[in-house]
Each structure stands twice: as structure tokens, then as C-alpha cells.
């Protein structure tokens, strides 16, 4: 509360005849009775300032008070003093100056006679004219006011001036001499006409009623002190916040005009100097905590911003810059002009619905808006010397933030949520005689005002580091560990991580530090022990599992809980998102003054996830569950839509107990805001798109994407053309029948086989063409054909004398087996015994593993498996298969006549035979050895494989670089893997069928094993977080339908951590479906761009077929046509 008021010195000279100023008692000038002599600007006659830095000040004075500026321009020291008082803010300084000029003038005109009494001091200063001397001694009117005998004593301590600002107002009265420079006018709020609404509209008001209620102008006027006539009205920018403050009795204002137009006409501009005061009821005391409802928060902040108050103390780092930046960063300036200053009773059901609709969808995202807003202005801290690489700029910013949080000293700082703000500066303070009590404390997050410094009631130093994945949270923490070591040697940093990250943390911590600067140990496993008495490590890494186990078992005996750590860090903090879990409780029980949480996804499901984090941080008062529930959970809880209106009402009442509004909508908004504010204080979060100083925080090396066009080999062309003719025929059949779209899936399957054929014809032969699914119908593979296609130049190396097994000798066992099987099949002999019936195979059916069974036996078996719900698998090797992959072997003697007489539709055998007539019958023996040798020599690489090999040999292997090879087809991955292996190029493999553990093994091999040049991967297996930056080459073997997916694939390599230029090569076969797919892709990209364009232009593209254009509204139609067009393109029709 205000200090005792010293006896006013100027009481005797108070001019009794002066118009009483309305309750203007300036307590800030207590004890500086001499100030009138030193700061009244009017006396500063001698010579105007010539300092160039003062030019703007002088110019402003010249504009606002031309006469004054001409006659008595202020001296340099005076200007400097005002600039100082204005905290460097020109507006504030000018405003203060004008204020004093006003007062000086007022005094002059009010009491000329009194001037002689103070003349000696004026003459001592050798001021110029007598009138100036008079002014010099003239006390400031606010002092006079304090001495007015008529004033009730209680009022003297009721309000304190916090600042002044200039405002443009509009006259609401007309007449001459209504305004005088020397009069202080009171400001009041025009009483709102009471809204009379029928009861019904109160419950279900029309929207217009709502509009009126919420947009009703908030009129603030200043009036003639004597008559009470309204003279001028404030503009909405000011009245929007002045009004609520006046309504709530928090603040009061008075006005001194700067311009006094006379005669005055309604609507005239009156520039005024407004003094802002805080009333006694504004202060929060133990008995008066009603202000903690957030209602005054924004208006107060607006007021302080208008007065250009710069915090003298802040519990938390504030952005550099002037008052504007600070208040903007606190998020209190943006929303006010639009924010309705509606009275509490105006809330109703309709606005509630609006609020709910507005809040819910964006709720989670909006929580971090404010967090992300503030990152740009953060200063940077330099990389600690004990680290072995330098941080990126945004990481240095993070380090600064982390350090500032840790160095925050309890006891020396005030409550982190408060700002210390100065009262209207007294001259004593300016002269260096600082008055420590001349400040008050404001909580910009809930609007609380305090006179005494709010004590810190938490020991916590820490926060949430929520940078997006891939920005280097670990590194930032490592930097903090280096930058802010424990003062006591015995204290270490404890890092709690999920088990899978244990090794990664340990190695990253060690890798990022110079030798012997960090001693990292992991506390994990059966025989774990910490040597507490010996030299303690600087960092101990353990897992959530261990923490929980030891907490459950015997916390007092565990080294984790029995000691105080220097710092505790939880990685992937979403592990403790539920505060009721043992893990969360265990983590909270770890003792450490510095507490950190790392997470890329601070909110997993709902806002309450944050509570557990705040609780871990021990961030009072939010860490108390009651408090959180009351202020966050309950207001934000969605109202169940199914509940009856009565229940809804009950719910509202519950909510409303907090916010004093009937429906909770304001409570929701306030709660959301509270969370936002809370998070902006304890969390730092940047995303990859965050921009700092106009540049994205991440600048990646260049990326060069090129398309390599290839021509098919003759063999491939044969197969492909035959297949394409086949599919085209089918497609045109559908087109003629008009059933294209109903057979869309089927057609896609056709295209899929074409695409696979581009990769390697083996892929389609392996799984048969027709996809009807039934074994009986499944297309038959002409074995001889199959072998011919994939045998390589057999004729060039005739080896007819060799027996089948001999020919297969150099190959792998599987090939040997394969050749054996095939030769047996070709033989049509009975060497092949069906493992199921133990009889010679009849109607052989081949598995992809080349195990052969009788058609009946295997069908029977697969049906049994399906019946039991078990996956299909080869009975011999347990390799899983789909029925599509089964090959039904048909002997030429059987099919040839059939093929020529009546080709069954969809049968590969038939069209293959037609496309390339069967070779003349060869002697059986020759055929056997021929075929076996071909198979044994493994499958011929396709054009793409050859190109891939060439690329790797030329660009990747010689440079010791690494390459990721993407394909969509698992079969192709197999082929690539086989090829690379046989060519001696090491490779790792990643596909969807692998378990997580297996994938990690493969990935580690690719990252760490220098001989693993390639990663053969299917994109679907590459989850988003996957980091493949160890490679800088990407080969995309087959085009994706969706360009964005390809982009994603590339981003696995071209992401943070990538230091080298990335080369991306896409293989496209000329004159195939692939080339046409590129066209469709390009069209899609265009279309996506066009979505943003006006609708009108989008409807023109699809009119080619001559059908009547259905108009822009027929979107589904458009989509269908578009699909059809795409298909036409794909089939080259």
C-alpha cells in the first residue's frame, strides 16, 4: 500500500481559487518537493538544444506547440532529461514534456501573484524574463490538489499515477471557451443503457441481439469538472480498454487538453494528455483477490502499453526493444480492438456455441501459437568451448533460453509471472535518487496487480524444450550441460530416456563433447550401480523403466531418488503425459532444482497432457492439481453433446463459479489463454519452418533432382508390349462398355502390372498376370517362356554336355534347387514328390520359393489355413505367400493347341503364345540342360537394374558415398538386393514386413557399416522420423502416383543433418506407362495449385470429351472425369 504521505511543502502556496482537479493526487512525486524548480520546462529559456539526437523531440514539440517551441525551445539537458523520463521513447518523452508545459502554463494563469515569492530561486538561475521565473517556481498543479482541504483524506491514498499518454478525442459539445489548457478534466464512462431483453431471448437470443450486445460501443468521455457536461469522447482504440477499467473501478483517468479549439464544434478533434491512475481497489491483497479472474488483464496491459511503461523488473526474460515490443510479445495488444468488452451478463447460449466451435478444432495447435511467436526475438548464447562442434544459430538461441531459465535465482527474482512496472516517474528517480517503492507489480497473464514484490513460491528452474523432431533437442541439452555445470562436483545431470534411445543419448553426449569434459555413464541393466562415493559422473543416463522400478521397489535406497541431482532431463516426455501413472509419479519424485522436459509432441491427446509436465516442472501454482483442474480442465472440458439441456445448465453453473459468466464461454477462452500464456513462459518450440531474421532456421544443402530416361531392352520390350496390348484391349473393352469407373480397381491392377513390368518383367511373371484370385482360373505360366525371358544369352555359351546339376554348380544352393525343380518339371518326370501327398506332383503348382505341390493338395491346405485364419505359407519353408503368387505350371503340349484355337481371356499363356509363337519343339534333354543353366545363372538384370548398377559404380562407390534406393515393389527390392549382393556392393534392406527390431539392425548397419553402400527400401516402411542423412544419393526406381510421396522419400535424406549436396535420380522408361505417369503427376501438381485459384477457372479443363459441362458445382463429376482422363493418359489413348 502507499507509503505515508509526507507533509506537503507547498501547502501554503496552494491557490485556493484554482479549479479543483478531480481526485488527482500524485503520490509519485513524494519527497521531491524541489522538482518543480528543475523540471518545469517553461523555465528552460537560455538556448534551445542543438544536439542532433534531440531533433525529433524538438520537431515534435514544434508541431504540437508551435508558439511554445518558437519562444522557449527546451535546452539540451532538459530534452535529455525528458528522454530519460520517457525511457527513450520519443512519444512518452514528448508527452511528459507537454504535460509539464501544460501545468506550468496553468499555474501561470492561475496565480500570477504568487510568483514573486519564489523569485530568488529564479534569479539565482539567471533565467530570462520575469514571467519565466514565475513559471519556474510555480508548483505543479497535482501537488496543489493534494492540499485541497475539501478532499476526504481517504482519497489521498486511493490512487496512484502510473503514466500519461496522448490521445485524440472528439468533441461532443459545442460552444466557445469550453476548454482551457489549465484545467484538468475528469474522465468517466457513459452509463450503458440497461439492456432490456425478454427472458426468451436471454436463453435463445437471435444473433443480432448477440451482435448488439457484444459490439455495443464502449463510450468514454471527459467532462467539464464543474458542470459535468460531456466535452469530448475517446476513440474506440482507447475507450475499448478504458471503459472496462472504469467499469471495474480499477483505474481512473484525467485529461488535460493540449489543443483547445474555440469555438468548439461537435466532432472537432481535441488532442489531450491523459493521466492514468490505478485505484486502491485495483491492488490485490489477501482480502481482495477478486481480480484474479483475468477480466482486467488485457485492458490493464493496454493501459500500460499506452503509457509506454517499460518493466523495471521481470521474472522472465523479455524481448529486447521498447514498450511496444514487450507488450506485443506478451500477446495483449493484438486482440483488443476486436475483443468485445461485453458486460458479463451478455453471454448466452449462442455465443457459447460459437466459442466452442472456435476453440475446439484449433485448440491444440493454438496452445503453441504464442510459444512460437516469441522465438524470433531470443538472443543467442555462444557455443560452450567444451563442445566439439558449433551450434546452429537457432540452437544458440535455445541455449540462451535454457540458461536464462536455469540461472533464474529464487529469492533474488520475483515471481516469474509478474512484471515490475514503475509508477509515474518522480524527478527524484530521474536525478538518480531512485525510489525503490516507486513500482508496482503486474501479472500480464491474469491481470493481478500488487504493490509488494511477489515472492517466488517455487524453486523450479527449467521448462519444456519442444522443438520439432530433427532440430537437435539432444544437442541443445548437451550444450546446456556444458554451459551450466553444477557448482558442486558431487551433483550430476540425470537423463531419463526410453530404453531404445539409451545408446543414442550416450553416444551423442560423448560425440558432442571434447574428450574428458563429460563423464557419461548409463545406469541400466541387472547389475546397475552408481558409485556415489567415488568420482561421480557428470551425466547419468537411465530409462523410464529403471526409474519406475526403483521407485516402486525402494525409493529411499535408490541412488536415483535418495540424492539431489543438479539437473534432471526427461527425453520423450510424453512418457509421463498421464500424471497418475507410476512412471510419472516416479519421475516427479526425482529431486533436482533444474528440471527439463524434451518432447516433440507435448500434447498427445488433450490439454491435460500438459498438466503432468507442469507438475514435473513443479511450476507453482499450476502444478497443484486442484488449481489446474479449476482453471484449465473444467473450463475447457467439452460439454458432452448428448447431455440434456438441464445437465448442460448444471455444467455451466459449475464452470461459471470461476468466471462469473453464465455459460462458461469466457471461462473457456480465458482458460485457453491461460494455457497459452503458461506455455509461452515455460516452453520453447521451433518448427522446421520457423523463420528467424527472415531466414528459415534450417538451410539444407542443395538438392538436385533429375530424371534419367532409359530405353527397354528388346526382351523387355517384347514382354512389355504384349502386356500393354493386353491391358489396352481390356481397357478399351471397359471404355466401350462404359464400365471404366466401376472396374477402376481392376484397371489399376492392370496398370500396376505394367509398372512392375517396367521394373523387371520377372515381377509380373512371378505372381501371374490375372488377379482373379482363384487358383483354377489363375493364369498359367509358360515355363519355357519364363526361363527364356530370364535366362541370359544361353546360346552364346552352349553347355549342352553338362548334366543339370553340374550346370548349376557355381550358383547358390537356392538356384541349384530351383534348377533341379525346374528341370524336373520340364522333364514331366516323377522325380518331384509332392510333400503333402508324397506322390509325384500332379498339376504342379509352384511357390515363389519354387517348392512344388500338387494343385489339389496345396489348394486344400491353403483353404484349411484360411479357414483357421492363419496366413498362407509354404508348407516346406514357411515363407508366406499370397495365392496370387502361386504359379500354375502348364506344359506346352497342353496349352499350345488351346492357345491357338480359343485363347481364354486373361491367360498369360495364351497371349504370350500369340505374341511370340512358341519355338519349335526341341529335344527334351537339350531343353532341360538349357533351362537349368539359364536359371542357375540367375535372373538377367533388367534395364533399370543395369542403370542402377552403372549409377552406383560411377557416382556412389568411388566416392565412398551412400545411396538409398526406393521402390514400391517388394519383388523389385528383392531383385536389387540380389543383384547388389552378387556384384559385391553391400546393402541393407528396409521393408514393411520387417519387425521394428530388425529394421533397427538394418538401419544401424547402413549408418555405421562403411561397406553398406546402399539401403534398399520401400517407402512405406520409412516412417516419417527416419533419418537417412548418412546417404546423399537417392535413386527412385519407379514413379509414385503421388508426387508428394516421392518428395517425402527424398526428405528422409534431404533433412537436417545432411551436410552434402543431395542427388536424386528417378529412373523412367521411355515409351511406357511410367512416362505417362509423369504427365499425370505434373497435372496433379498443377491441379493442387489450382485449388487455391478461383473456382471459375478450374472447370474448363475437363470439357474435352464434348460432354456438357456440369458446372463448377458438380465436383464429384469433375473428379470422375479427371480420373477417366488420367486413365486415358496412362494407357496412351
Amino acid at each position, binding site marked *: 500500500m502507499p507509503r505515508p504521505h509526507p507533509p506537503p511543502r507547498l501547502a501554503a502556496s496552494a491557490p485556493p481559487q484554482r479549479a479543483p482537479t478531480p481526485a488527482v493526487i500524485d503520490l509519485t512525486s513524494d519527497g521531491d518537493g524541489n522538482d518543480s524548480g528543475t523540471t518545469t520546462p517553461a523555465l528552460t529559456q537560455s538556448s534551445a538544444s542543438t544536439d542532433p539526437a534531440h531533433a525529433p523531440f524538438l520537431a515534435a514539440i514544434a508541431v504540437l506547440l508551435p508558439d511554445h517551441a518558437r519562444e522557449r525551445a527546451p535546452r539540451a539537458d532538459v530534452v535529455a532529461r525528458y528522454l530519460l523520463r520517457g525511457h527513450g521513447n520519443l512519444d512518452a518523452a514528448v508527452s511528459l514534456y507537454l504535460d509539464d508545459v501544460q501545468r506550468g502554463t496553468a499555474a501561470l494563469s492561475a496565480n500570477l501573484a504568487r510568483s514573486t515569492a519564489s523569485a530568488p530561486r529564479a534569479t539565482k538561475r539567471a533565467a530570462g524574463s520575469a514571467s519565466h521565473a514565475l513559471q519556474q517556481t510555480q508548483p505543479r498543479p497535482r501537488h496543489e490538489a493534494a492540499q485541497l482541504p475539501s478532499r476526504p483524506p481517504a482519497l489521498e491514498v486511493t490512487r496512484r499515477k502510473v503514466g500519461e499518454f496522448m490521445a485524440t478525442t472528439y468533441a461532443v459539445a459545442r460552444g466557445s471557451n469550453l476548454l482551457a489548457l489549465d484545467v484538468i478534466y475528469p474522465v468517466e464512462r457513459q452509463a450503458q443503457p440497461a439492456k432490456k431483453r425478454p427472458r426468451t431471448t436471454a436463453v435463445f437470443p437471435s444473433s443480432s441481439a448477440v451482435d448488439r450486445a457484444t459490439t455495443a460501443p464502449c463510450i468514454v468521455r471527459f467532462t467539464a469538472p464543474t458542470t459535468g457536461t460531456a466535452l469530448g469522447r475517446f476513440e474506440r482504440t482507447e475507450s475499448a480498454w478504458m471503459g472496462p477499467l472504469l467499469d471495474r473501478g480499477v483505474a481512473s483517468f484525467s485529461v488535460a487538453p493540449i489543443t483547445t479549439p474555440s469555438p468548439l464544434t461537435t466532432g472537432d478533434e481535441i488532442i489531450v494528455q491523459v493521466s492514468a491512475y490505478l485505484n486502491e481497489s485495483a491492488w490485490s491483497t489477501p482480502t481482495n483477490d477478486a481480480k484474479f479472474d483475468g477480466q482486467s488483464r488485457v485492458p490493464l496491459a493496454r493501459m500500460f502499453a499506452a503509457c509506454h511503461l517499460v518493466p523495471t523488473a521481470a521474472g522472465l526474460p523479455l524481448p529486447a526493444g521498447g514498450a511496444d515490443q514487450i507488450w506485443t510479445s506478451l500477446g495483449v495488444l493484438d486482440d483488443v480492438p476486436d475483443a468485445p468488452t461485453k458486460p458479463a451478463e451478455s453471454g448466452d447460449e449462442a455465443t457459447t456455441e460459437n466459442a466452442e466451435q472456435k476453440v475446439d478444432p484449433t485448440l491444440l495447435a493454438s496452445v503453441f501459437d504464442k510459444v512460437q511467436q516469441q522465438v524470433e526475438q531470443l538472443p543467442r548464447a555462444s557455443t560452450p568451448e567444451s563442445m566439439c562442434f558449433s551450434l546452429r544459430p537457432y540452437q544458440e538461441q535455445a541455449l540462451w533460453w535454457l540458461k536464462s531459465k536455469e540461472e533464474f535465482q529464487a529469492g533474488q527474482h520475483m515471481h516469474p509471472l509478474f512484471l515490475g512496472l514503475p509508477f509515474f516517474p518522480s524527478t527524484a528517480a530521474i536525478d538518480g535518487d531512485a525510489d525503490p517503492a516507486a513500482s508496482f507489480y503486474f501479472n500480464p497473464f491474469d491481470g493481478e496487480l500488487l504493490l509488494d514484490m511477489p515472492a517466488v513460491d517455487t524453486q523450479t528452474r527449467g521448462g519444456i524444450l519442444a522443438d520439432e523432431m530433427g532440430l537437435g533437442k539432444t544437442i541443445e541439452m548437451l550444450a546446456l550441460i556444458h554451459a551450466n555445470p553444477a557448482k558442486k562436483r558431487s551433483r550430476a545431470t540425470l537423463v531419463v530416456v526410453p530404453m531404445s534411445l539409451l545408446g543414442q543419448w550416450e553416444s551423442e553426449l560423448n560425440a558432442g563433447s571434447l574428450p574428458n569434459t563429460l563423464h557419461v555413464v548409463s545406469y541400466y541393466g541387472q547389475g546397475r550401480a552408481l558409485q556415489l562415493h567415488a568420482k561421480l559422473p557428470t551425466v547419468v543416463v537411465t530409462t523410464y523403466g529403471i526409474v519406475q522400478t526403483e521407485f516402486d521397489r525402494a525409493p529411499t535406497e535408490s541412488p536415483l531418488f535418495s540424492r539431489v541431482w543438479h539437473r534432471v532431463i526427461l527425453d520423450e516426455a510424453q512418457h509421463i503425459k498421464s500424471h497418475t501413472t507410476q512412471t510419472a509419479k516416479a519421475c516427479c519424485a526425482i529431486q533436482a532444482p533444474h528440471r527439463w522436459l524434451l518432447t516433440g509432441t507435448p500434447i498427445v491427446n488433450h490439454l491435460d497432457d500438459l498438466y503432468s509436465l507442469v507438475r514435473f516442472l513443479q511450476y507453482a501454482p499450476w502444478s497443484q492439481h486442484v488449481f489446474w483442474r479449476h482453471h484449465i480442465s473444467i473450463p475447457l472440458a467439452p460439454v458432452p453433446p448428448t447431455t440434456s439441456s438441464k445437465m448442460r445448465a448444471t455444467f455451466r453453473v459449475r464452470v461459471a463459479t470461476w468466471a462469473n459468466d453464465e455459460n462458461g464461454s469466457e471461462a473457456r477462452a480465458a482458460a485457453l489463454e491461460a494455457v497459452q500464456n503458461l506455455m509461452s513462459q515455460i516452453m520453447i518450440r521451433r518448427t522446421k519452418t520457423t523463420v528467424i531474421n527472415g531466414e528459415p532456421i534450417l538451410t539444407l544443402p542443395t538438392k538436385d533432382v533429375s530424371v534419367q530416361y532409359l530405353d527397354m531392352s528388346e526382351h523387355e520390350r517384347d514382354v512389355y508390349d504384349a502386356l500393354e496390348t493386353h491391358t489396352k484391349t481390356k481397357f478399351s473393352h471397359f471404355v466401350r462398355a462404359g464400365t471404366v469407373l466401376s472396374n477402376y480397381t481392376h484397371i489399376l491392377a492392370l496398370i500396376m502390372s505394367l509398372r512392375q513390368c517396367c521394373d523387371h518383367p520377372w515381377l509380373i511373371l512371378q505372381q501371374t498376370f490375372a488377379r482373379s484370385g482363384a487358383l483354377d482360373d489363375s493364369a498359367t505360366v509358360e515355363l519355357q517362356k519364363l526361363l527364356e525371358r530370364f535366362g541370359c544369352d544361353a546360346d552364346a555359351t552352349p553347355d549342352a554336355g553338362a548334366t543339370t546339376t553340374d550346370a548349376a554348380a557355381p550358383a547358390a544352393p537356392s538356384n541349384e534347387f530351383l534348377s533341379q525343380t525346374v528341370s524336373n518339371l520340364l522333364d514331366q518326370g516323377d522325380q518331384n514328390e509332392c*510333400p*503333402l501327398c*508324397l*506322390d509325384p506332383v500332379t498339376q504342379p503348382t509352384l511357390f515363389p520359393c519354387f517348392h512344388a505341390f500338387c494343385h489339389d*493338395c496345396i489348394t486344400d*491346405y491353403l483353404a*484349411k489355413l484360411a479357414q483357421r485364419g492363419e496366413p498362407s505359407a509354404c508348407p516346406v519353408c*514357411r515363407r508366406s505367400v499370397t495365392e496370387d503368387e502361386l504359379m500354375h505350371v502348364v506344359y506346352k503340349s497342353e496349352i499350345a493347341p488351346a492357345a491357338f484355337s480359343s485363347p481364354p481371356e486373361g491367360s498369360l499363356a495364351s497371349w504370350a503364345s500369340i505374341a511370340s509363337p512358341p519355338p519349335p519343339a526341341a529335344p527334351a534333354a537339350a531343353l532341360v540342360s538349357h533351362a537349368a543353366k539359364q536359371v542357375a545363372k540367375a535372373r538377367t538384370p533388367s534395364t533399370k537394374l543395369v542403370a542402377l548398377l552403372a549409377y552406383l559404380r560411377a557416382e556412389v562407390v568411388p566416392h565412398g558415398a551412400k545411396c538409398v534406393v526406393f521402390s514400391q515393389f517388394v519383388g523389385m527390392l528383392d531383385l536389387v538386393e540380389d543383384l547388389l549382393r552378387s556384384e559385391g556392393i553391400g546393402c541393407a534392406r528396409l521393408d514393411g514386413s520387417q519387425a521394428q527390431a530388425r529394421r533397427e539392425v538394418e538401419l544401424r548397419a547402413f549408418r555405421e557399416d562403411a561397406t553398406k553402400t546402399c539401403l534398399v527400401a520401400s517407402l512405406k516402411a520409412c516412417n516419417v522420423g527416419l533419418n537417412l542423412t548418412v546417404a546423399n544419393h537417392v535413386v527412385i526406381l519407379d514413379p509414385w502416383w503421388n508426387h508428394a510421396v516421392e518428395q517425402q522419400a527424398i526428405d528422409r535424406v534431404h533433412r537436417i543433418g545432411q551436410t552434402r549436396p543431395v542427388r536424386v535420380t528417378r529412373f523412367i522408361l521411355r515409351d511406357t506407362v511410367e512416362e505417362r505417369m509423369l504427365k499425370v503427376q505434373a497435372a496433379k501438381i498443377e491441379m493442387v495449385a489450382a485449388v487455391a485459384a478461383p473456382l471459375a477457372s478450374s472447370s474448363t479443363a475437363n470439357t474435352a470429351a464434348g460432354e456438357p459441362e456440369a458446372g463448377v458445382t458438380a465436383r464429384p463429376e469433375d473428379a470422375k472425369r479427371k480420373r477417366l482422363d488420367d486413365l486415358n493418359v496412362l494407357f496412351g489413348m
Partner: protein
Amino acid sequence: MALSKRIIKETERLLADPAPGIQATPHEDNLRYFDVVMSGPSQSPFEGGSFKLELFLPDDYPMTAPKVRFLTKIYHPNIDRLGRICLDILKDKWSPALQIRTVLLSIQALLSAPNPDDPLANDVAQHWKDNEKDAINTAKEWTAKYAHE
């Protein structure tokens, strides 16, 4: 039916070319029921013993696994007091490509290599784990006591 033909085929082969140390004879009245005599593998605690088993081929064999059980008492972590055998190919890992012969060979292999980590008889397994030497001695004793005829 091809599948019962398979049983006949298997039986013929078992009789014509028996696996070493294994003798499987079908019942005359029920060709799906086999009496099996298995000699304990050398170098194992069961060496020298001759163990009787019963093997039954269910109706849908070979789509489901045969049912096999030891009749002779045996001290083995994967065989319980009732003679039931814990062997994956007799359960979820069954494949119709397996045969009576392979099943019996697998059981013989199990005698050579007890697996106390996947026990059917918990007490035996524990014994095996705690004191393998002692357990092996017990197994030897049991073999001498029950498997010698």
C-alpha cells in the same frame, strides 16, 4: 482319398526303411494308431533306455499334427508326468510337409537337447537350470529305473 493314401505311404516307408533307433508299428485294427519304441540317444542321460510312445494321426492329418505321448516315465524338462511333449512342430509350427518320421526324429533330438527355458514340467526344468548335473543324474536314474526292460 489322397491323404489317407499318404498315411499308407508313410507307413510303408517307416516299415521298409525305419529311422535309426526308432521303431513305429501301426495297430492292426487302427492304422492311425502307432506304437513307437525309441532308444535314448547316445551321449544323453537317456542313453541305453528304450522309451515307449504312442502316436495317433487325427482325422485331418496331415493338415493337423499327429498326437504323440511318452508312455514310459521320463525325467525331461519338456516332457511332463503324463508323457506329453512340448515341441513346437507338434503345435503351432506344424506343417503338412512334416511326416511321422520327421516328428519322431525331432522327439529324439529333443531327448538329446533338453530345453529347460521352454518347459512343460516346471519342477524338472527348474532342477535342470539350478543344478544340471544333478538333474542329469536323476534323468539317468529314471532311465535305468523305468526304461530298461
